[in-house]
Each structure stands twice: as structure tokens, then as C-alpha cells.
């Protein structure tokens, strides 16, 4: 076999790298099989006699097919296709006979690299793939240059990639994006994602409290609402069996009164990360909703776009609003109780004047009760199995937001005040670099809404009523503290972690812009962006693309192909300028003519200039052929050449 050992090693390294991130995505049987073949091939570099024979290769192929078959995925779709290509790549590695096979392997490797993007689109992955591409191209350079110096080939590949980048970016921006037709979607199974569900029971939200996973990002076009206003509404839960709260079964799409919206709206762009549910979390109260978004009768936004894709929405929300009257259905829904209240509860409501005073009085009494009595806010409340609300209210006094919200709503309903639980997210970490908010799973929250006469649905957050000293310090809720749900002065912010925070914010911003402008640059974003540049239709787009590519090509050609034999010695360059000046007078230096001979000829036909021609020539000879050069001479020489002119 005539394939250079170096090239093989280089290639195998690149292939090993390309498949590495797939360990996370593919079943271990496939990756194990692949890396077994790769190691076999690697050993074969030194011990070619150990490489599999034709029969063994056939056997290996059968094994590969068997593995694929056992996974029951067919050959279409993301997972199945990736497995197929990885397996094929592994098998092809064992059959390298000619240069052609190397090319095939490299092409397969590029496909596998692309498949990685179907699983992960982070900036790290992109950088990683870029590096691996460089190694793959380096292999090609190696093959075509018979270069044993792999470093040199790698450098060449890097240079080519660098030269290709501007053009890539232009094509990326201007290449028309079209949604793929529906039949082209493959049904892929997805891993279940964590996040808010359509029901809630004690522990649902506290499970999320430790999760750092990003849910969405928001960039405001105007002012950013203060932390206390940042309630991102999600599903509204109305039905309860005393323990578990669910969305109601009535049709959420039935028409409701248009709320009265006043005050200054917040306008923002919301970039939802891939989700299981088609919910979009907006500030109360979203208005002017247009497709693909829809506002249901709980004022919750739902989208008709594929929630599995990162999607961007433009939303306007009014912080002050009045939802007006309540329908009968709504009233029934919002006062539903699993059964008659117990004596303890009735007594408590009674004591807090729930039955004999206006609703807002009762509300403040109740909040005051949470504050003054011995209530604790904790991530790890004691297990409450039987009757969590009563257990919480009268025994443990310890709970997380869901405990407070459910207890609050329950008590409201006992007092015949329509109330419901709203789940969603509260707060958001402001990224000062990019001026946007990061909302993570840890910010999941539950609060209450009560319906009040003349005011409509009003948000009440009972968790905010807890006395600060009763917040358990050991739990990781300083985020919520910072966001003002719980008001107490944080002492965790030290200067040492400051720069870390800054760095994190900087990175967060890079990531956000990456998501927005690269990952999420779809046909809508493209047309928006391009029309802001005045490029509106396909034809102009293509003209621009062709034009800019042409320009880049021209620049590149100039850089790459400009007269390569040019001397770089400044003295020679200056002397050539001098010769150029003399061309006007018909004096052309012959290639084989020395400077001195030329000056003799020049002096003869330009007697007035004789002195300066002589001086320039002497200096040039001194600079170019002399024993020691100094910079003064060079400067003098260059200025003499510059000043050399013919009097008119």
C-alpha cells in the first residue's frame, strides 16, 4: 500500500475527533463498534498484517448491520442516519487501498461532522468542528503535497479556511432560506425535557430549583422592568383535588373580554430555547398577539410553531391592565374546591376576617399571617402526604413557593374569592453586556391570581410575604433573593466573584448573540435583517451575493496571485521606482544591465540630471552591494528617489 503512514495517522486522528462528541448522542453499541474499528485500523498502521481479511471485513459489516437493525430505527431520520454514517465510516477505515478511499473517508467524515450539529449547536461545537475540518483538509493537503511535515499541511489548510471564511459568511447571510416542506420532517424521538408541566403538586417546582438550564432569553427594546415586575406567565392551574393542581378542562380558546390596557408597554424579543410544550412565557399582559402566537383565555401565550426548535418571538406586554368581568364558567372554575373545608381552615379564614370583610382586606390579613407567624421558606419542606395544604398551614409552616401559592389560593376559594395558581418564571438574570435577561429553570415559580371587582385578575405573590429571617440560608435561592421575591440584603456578592460574574455575563452575551444571529437565522430573521439593509426580494439577494463574492474573489486573487517574484529589499524597490521615472524619458533599463552601466547611459541622455542620477546610483550600489548598510543611507536614498523629477 502506498499510503503514507503520516497521512494515515493524521486522518485517523481527525476521524477519532469527529466521532468523539457522538458518544453522548449515540448508543454505546454504535460508538463502541466504531472506536473498535478505529483502534484496529490504528494498530494496522504499524502492523498491516493484522488488518482484517476480506472475509473478516464481511463479517464486521454484518455485525455493523446487525447493531443498526437491533436499534429499530430504520435508516431515515437524524438518529438512524447518524448511526448509519458512523458505522459506514468505521467500516471504510478498514478498507483503505488507494487515495480514492481516503477521499471517500474524508467525505464521510464531513457528513458525520454535520450530523453533530443536529444534536448540538453551541458555539463550542462549531469551533470544535472547525478545528476538525482543518485537520481533515490538512489531510487532503498532505495527500496532495507529499509533505512529510504535517504541521505545514495543517497550516496550509488553516490558511485556506481563513481565506474561505469571509465568503462563507456572505453566503450564509444572503443564501435564501426556505422552510423545508412538511413531508421532509422526520419523526424523531426526543429526550424528555425538564421544565414546568401542566400540573403541579408539592415538589414540582422545587425540583427545578437547582437546574441551571436556560429556558428563554429576553431582550427589551425599551426599558427593562424592575425585578419585582418580572413575572413570566405560564400555564394557569385552576383544578385541584386538594393535592394536585391541574389546568381546567374547559375550552381555553373560548373568547373572553378584551382587557383594558393602560400605561407604557414593555416591548421585547423573546428567544425560547427548545421546549416540550408550546407555551411561551410572557409578562402580564401580552397584547397585539399575532401568529404563530395565540393568547388563550388564561392570557397565556401558546405558539403553533414547533416548540422543539429555538424560536424568536416579538411580544408587547402592558404591566397595568384590567381584565374586567368574570364569566360564569370562569367563576366556577376559580372557586372550585375538592370538598368542604375542614374546621381548622374555616376557623383560620374566620379569624382573618375572610367571610366578613372585603377581599383585599382578607388578602392583606392573610399575607400578614404568613409574615408574622412562624412561616419558613425552604427548598426541603417535610414530606406532606395526606393533606398538604393543612399540614403546611397548621403543622410544618415550612414550604416552597408552590406551598404558599396553593395554600393562598385554597384559602381564597374558601372565602369565596375567585383565585387561581399561575406557574411560570420569576425574575431573570440581567446580562449587562448584552442587556438581556437570562431565564433559567431555577427561576420557576408559582404565584396566585385573584379576581377582584373592578380590577379583574390581580397578581398576588404570597411567597414574597415571608419574613426574610425565615428564609433558609443553606438553599440556593439567592437568585430569587436578588430578584426581589424575598427582600433581604444579600452578602454573598464579594469582589472575588465579581469578575467571574462579569466573565459569565460576557460569555452569556456571546452565546445569546450566537443563538439569535447564527442558530436562529431563519427565513423570517433573514428577510427582516436583509430588508433593513434594503434587500427585499430574492433577485436582489442573489445579485448582492454574486456581487460580494465577486469582490471577495477579486481581493483574494490580488492577494494570492500578485506578482510573486517581487523583491522585498526596500533599496531595490526604491531603485525600481527611480527606473520607472526614467522610462518617461525613453530610458529603459535592460534586465542584464547593471546600475552603473545604466547610469552612464542615463547621464548621457539627461546631462542636467547627471549629478542626481550619479548620486542615486552610487547610493544604490552602496546599499545593495556594499559591505555595511545603514538606515540613514536608505532613507536618504528613498528621499532622493522621491525627489527625483524632471523640470518642465
Amino acid at each position: 500500500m502506498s499510503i503514507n503512514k503520516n497521512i494515515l495517522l493524521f486522518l485517523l486522528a481527525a476521524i477519532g475527533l469527529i466521532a468523539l462528541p457522538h458518544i453522548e448522542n449515540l448508543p454505546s453499541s454504535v460508538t463502541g463498534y466504531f472506536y473498535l474499528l478505529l483502534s484496529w485500523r490504528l494498530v494496522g498502521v504499524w502492523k498491516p498484517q493484522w488488518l482484517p481479511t476480506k472475509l473478516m471485513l464481511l463479517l464486521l459489516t454484518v455485525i455493523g448491520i446487525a447493531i443498526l437493525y437491533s436499534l429499530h430505527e430504520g435508516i431515515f431520520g437524524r438518529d438512524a442516519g447518524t448511526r448509519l454514517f458512523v458505522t459506514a465510516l468505521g467500516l471504510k477505515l478498514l478498507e483503505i487501498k488507494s487515495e480514492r478511499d481516503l477521499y471517500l473517508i474524508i467525505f464521510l467524515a464531513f457528513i458525520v461532522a454535520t450530523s453533530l450539529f443536529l444534536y448540538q449547536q453551541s458555539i463550542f461545537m462549531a469551533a470544535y468542528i472547525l478545528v476538525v475540518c482543518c485537520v481533515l483538509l490538512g489531510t487532503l493537503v498532505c495527500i496532495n503535497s507529499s509533505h512529510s511535515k504535517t504541521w505545514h499541511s495543517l497550516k496550509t489548510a488553516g490558511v485556506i479556511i481563513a481565506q474561505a471564511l469571509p465568503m462563507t459568511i456572505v453566503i450564509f447571510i444572503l443564501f435564501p432560506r426556505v422552510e423545508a416542506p412538511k413531508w421532509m420532517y422526520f419523526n424523531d424521538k426526543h429526550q424528555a425535557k425538564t421544565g414546568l408541566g401542566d400540573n403541579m403538586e408539592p415538589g414540582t417546582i422545587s425540583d427545578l430549583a437547582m437546574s441551571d438550564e436556560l429556558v428563554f432569553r429576553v431582550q427589551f427594546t425599551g426599558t427593562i422592568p424592575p425585578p419585582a415586575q418580572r413575572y413570566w406567565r405560564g400555564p394557569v392551574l385552576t383544578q385541584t383535588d386538594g393535592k394536585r393542581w391541574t389546568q381546567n378542562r374547559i375550552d381555553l380558546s373560548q373568547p373572553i373580554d378584551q382587557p383594558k390596557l393602560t400605561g407604557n408597554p414593555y416591548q421585547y424579543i423573546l428567544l425560547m430555547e427548545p421546549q416540550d410544550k408550546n407555551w411561551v412565557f410572557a409578562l402580564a399582559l401580552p397584547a397585539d398577539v399575532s401568529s404563530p402566537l395565540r393568547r388563550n383565555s388564561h392570557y397565556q401565550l401558546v405558539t403553533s410553531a414547533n416548540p422543539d426548535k429555538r424560536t424568536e418571538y416579538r411580544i408587547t406586554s402592558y404591566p397595568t391592565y384590567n381584565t374586567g368581568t368574570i364569566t360564569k364558567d370562569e367563576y366556577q372554575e376559580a372557586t372550585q374546591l375538592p370538598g368542604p373545608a375542614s374546621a381548622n381552615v374555616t376557623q383560620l379564614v374566620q379569624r382573618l376576617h375572610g367571610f366578613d370583610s372585603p377581599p383585599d382586606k382578607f388578602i392583606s390579613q392573610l399575607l400578614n399571617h404568613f409574615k408574622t407567624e412562624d412561616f419558613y421558606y425552604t427548598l426541603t419542606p417535610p414530606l406532606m402526604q395526606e393533606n398538604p395544604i393543612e399540614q403546611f398551614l397548621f403543622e410544618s409552616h415550612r414550604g416552597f413557593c408552590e406551598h404558599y401559592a396553593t395554600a393562598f389560593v385554597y384559602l381564597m376559594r374558601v372565602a369565596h374569592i375567585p383565585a387561581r395558581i399561575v406557574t411560570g418564571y420569576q425574575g431573570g438574570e440581567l446580562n449587562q453586556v448584552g442587556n438581556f435577561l437570562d431565564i433559567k429553570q431555577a427561576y420557576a415559580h408559582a404565584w396566585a391570581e385573584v379576581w377582584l371587582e373592578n380590577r379583574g385578575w390581580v397578581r398576588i405573590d404570597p411567597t414574597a410575604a415571608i419574613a426574610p429571617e425565615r428564609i433558609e440560608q443553606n438553599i440556593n435561592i439567592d437568585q430569587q433573593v436578588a430578584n426581589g421575591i424575598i427582600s433581604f440584603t444579600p452578602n454573598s456578592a464579594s469582589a472575588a466573584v465579581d469578575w467571574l460574574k462579569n466573565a459569565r455575563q460576557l460569555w452569556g452575551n456571546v452565546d445569546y448573540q450566537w443563538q439569535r444571529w447564527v442558530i436562529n437565522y431563519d427565513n423570517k430573521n433573514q428577510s427582516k435583517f436583509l430588508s433593513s439593509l434594503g434587500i427585499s426580494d430574492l433577485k436582489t439577494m442573489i445579485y448582492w451575493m454574486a456581487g460580494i463574492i465577486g469582490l471577495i474573489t477579486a481581493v483574494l486573487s490580488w492577494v494570492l496571485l500578485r506578482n510573486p517574484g517581487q523583491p522585498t529589499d526596500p533599496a531595490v524597490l526604491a531603485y525600481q521606482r527611480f527606473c520607472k521615472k526614467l522610462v518617461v524619458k525613453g530610458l529603459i533599463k535592460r534586465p542584464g544591465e547593471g546600475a552603473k552601466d545604466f547610469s552612464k547611459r542615463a547621464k548621457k541622455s539627461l546631462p542636467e540630471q547627471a549629478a542626481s542620477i550619479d548620486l542615486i546610483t552610487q547610493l544604490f550600489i552602496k546599499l545593495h552591494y556594499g559591505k555595511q548598510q545603514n538606515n540613514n543611507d536608505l532613507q536618504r536614498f528613498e528621499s532622493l528617489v522621491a525627489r527625483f523629477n524632471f523640470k518642465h
Partner: protein
Amino acid sequence: MHNDLEQLLQTANQIILGKPRQIRLAVCCLLARGHLLIEDIPGVGKTTLSHTLAKLLGLNYQRIQFTSDILPADIIGASVFNAQTHSFSFHPGAIFNQMVLADEINRATPKAQSALLEAMEEHQVTVEGKTYPLPAPFFVIATQNPTHQIGTFPLPESQLDRFLMRIELGYPDLRAEKALLSGQRRHDLIDSLPVKLAPERLHQLQKAVTRVHASDALLDYCLAIINYTRSSPDYHCGLSPRAGLALLTAAKAWAFMNQRDAVIPEDIQAVLAAVAGHRLRSGNTNSEAIVQPILTNVAVL
């Protein structure tokens, strides 16, 4: 330092009329410690030139007339049996002189020729296991008839390479020839010549020549010339590395004679015909014509 040289050249020019360039080249060759080959028809002043130079430099001078029956021993000397002492004693040949004129070298057999050329190369003579150094300075001027004459053994190329330069004298121009005819006998003139450059001075000058600077750019030009001769279809074979060294040395001497401390391309061009003419084989026989393509095609910058 240069004054002596100029005076020497001037005086020589008064003896050999109308050949300043050839005289200059001959002196250049001397300064570069090379040997000179003069190729021309008889009677144009080859002998006069060498004799004049020997006189002006105060060197002891010997002329060897090469004939077809000259033996190596005639040139380098031989051990002779001395009947009185019953021992062999070495009788040095004609070559044991500071300046040797090897006249009509191509008349001798190759064996005699190579004896001379070996001595030239090694600056010493080995006879029957004993080595005798040649005097210093040691300078050979060989003359050669144009090869087309009958009964000659042209020097093979490998031997030609041992001469730093080959020059052609050619007929003098009309004015010079008239002056020659009307003037004194050259022979008498030469006899009365004073020494213009003593051997020690010559040695100093030769040393100074080696100190002449050759810049990188100049070496590139030199290499370009060598490469051109190797690749051009004009030449059957290119210049050898030894020829390249010779070219540079001669150019240094030429630069020195022109009172420069660094070589410039014009120096190389000036000596190129003399240095490379006999080393290159091409359709032409005239040195200037042989190197003309080099001068026009090899770029200086």
C-alpha cells in the same frame, strides 16, 4: 596602493599598444592568483605581453616553447645521475620561475601539457617521490594557437578549467599598428623597463583582493549566471562550481582594480567573457559572443 597599479598599467600600455583592456584583464588575473591563457594567432604580441608584465613586476621569467617532442621532464625537471658523486641530483625544469610563459601549449603532447597543468594547479612538483615547491608568486601565461591549425593538440576542457582567464589579443588597430611600426623595437624597450610593482607589493595586493566584499545580492546574480549556463540550450554544459568560484575571484580583483571595496554586477560582466568563455561550449568560438546571451538574459536585479 592603487597608484602602483595604475602606473604599472600605464607603462604596459606604452609597450603593448592599443590593448588596454587585455592588459587590464591580465593584471586582474594576476591579482586573483590565477593563470592566464592567451589564444591567438602568432605575432600579435603574446610573448611581448608576458615579458612586459614579468619585467614590470620584477619577476624572474622563463619562456618554454612547447613543441610536439617536448617531454614532461623538460618542463618540470628531472633527476640526473651525477657520475662524480654517484648520486642523482634534481635539475629543476623551466617551470621553477615566478613567471612562466608556456608558448604554444597546444603544440605539445597531452602528456607534456598535463605535466604543466598539474604543476600549475598544485604549485609544486613531485619527481621520483620528492616534492619541490614552486616559487611564489607563480604565474603561468600560456599561449595557444587557434585550434584549427594542423598538428595541434587542443587542450581538453578539463584542463582549460585550470586557467582563470582566457583572453584574445587580436590585431592592433591602425593607429596602434602605425605607432608600433614607427617606434622603437619592443625588445629593447622591454629590457629597459623598471620594476613597477615588487613581488612583496603584489602579494599585499593579492591579499587585499580577497577582502573585497561580495554582497548577497551579488552572489545571487553570480548564481543566476551559473544556473543560466546550466539550463540554457545555448550551452552544451554549464559552468562548474570551480568556474563559479573563479568568476567571483576575478570579479573581486576587477573591483579592486577599480578601487571599489565591494563587487558590483558590472565587475562580473567585465570579466565574464574572459573567465567563462573557455569553460563553456557553444556554437561560437569567440568568448564575447559566447557570453553575450548571459549578459542580455540574466537579470541583474
